[in-house]
């Protein structure tokens, strides 16, 4: 349970989902340790979903929602960001470092950015492992 190598991406199908599809179309599949979970809107990503990702073995969770103002459901990204903050607080209460949960805004045309974000997100874990 948790603090393993797995990274779970919880993302809005309209933005992050397009990025993942774009990467796949270019033959750039996500790394094996990364699991992609698509949701219909960032607003559906709540504390429970994030905690369950950790509970099911994720060492890190990245929440990906549209940029504010670009959400089809208007406020979905704002809700996702607020809930990610609440989930991070709860994780810290549970003794899990808050940096293991990250929130990012993303747009469908950012396929070049996501792999880099994942790499940067993983850096502290790689550094810990190499100690």
């Amino acid at each position, binding site marked *: *349970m*948790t603090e393993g190598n797995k990274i779970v991406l919880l993302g809005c199908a309209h933005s992050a989902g397009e990025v993942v599809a774009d990467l796949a179309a270019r033959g750039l599949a996500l790394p094996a340790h990364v699991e992609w979970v698509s949701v219909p809107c960032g607003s559906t990503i*709540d*504390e*429970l979903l994030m*905690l*369950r990702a*950790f*509970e099911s073995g994720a060492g890190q969770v990245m929440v990906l929602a549209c940029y504010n103002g670009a959400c089809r459901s208007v406020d979905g990204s704002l809700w996702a960001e607020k809930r990610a903050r609440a989930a991070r607080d*709860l*994780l810290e*209460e*549970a*003794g*899990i470092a808050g940096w293991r949960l990250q929130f990012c805004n993303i747009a469908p045309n950012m396929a070049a950015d996501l792999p880099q974000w994942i790499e940067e997100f993983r850096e502290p874990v790689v550094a810990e492992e190499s100690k």
Partner: protein
Amino acid sequence: MIVAKRKPLPEIAANLQSTRKLLIVGCNTCVAICLAGGEKEVAVMGSALHLALRNTNPAIVITQRSIERQCEEEFNAPLAEEIAAHDVVLSMACGVGVQTLAEQFPSAIVYPALNTAFMGRPEERGIWSERCAGCGNCVLDKFGGVCPIARCSKNLLNGPCGGSEQGKCEVDPKNIDCAWQLIYDRLSRIGQLDRLLEVEPPKDWSTSRHGGPRKIVREDMVL
């Protein structure tokens, strides 16, 4: 409604270090409305405790239930077998619900997961504020429907005090409205400002906590 807030997770987890089977029981009434102890919060608590106890008590088995109203025995009765089969019950109800479970199931170890805060109402999504202090002698008729006991920081019956400025209370001018400003505005609107000419005598607190634990008995409803 009764408004409550989740206790810090380490405080809850500290009681569960040697628990093998834990039953979390939520309440779908007041504490569900204030997003503290309903079905969803029970699920979040279950996940959070799994994570919090992952190193110290990884074998803990957590069962989650949520019932309609934990302060009434009839609603709790169907849980009897499950409560007997668990080491600890973590109640996510208000203090009334916790005590009802403990009284109804005398052998069960029942711990609270929430801090019961006050009787209040939802002002808007995610914001709840106090409205009633349960003093046992309602004076809302005299003050235009604004309670000086629950909403004035000093419980003044003959206000306002000198700490009222721009309609705000000196205790926390950013967040607390002066109850006496609200009372004045309201009485003015309904044409009852003359009520403020009456001097209120000191309040008889015997109907409140000063008279000890309270009980209401309706003889016509008891055989």
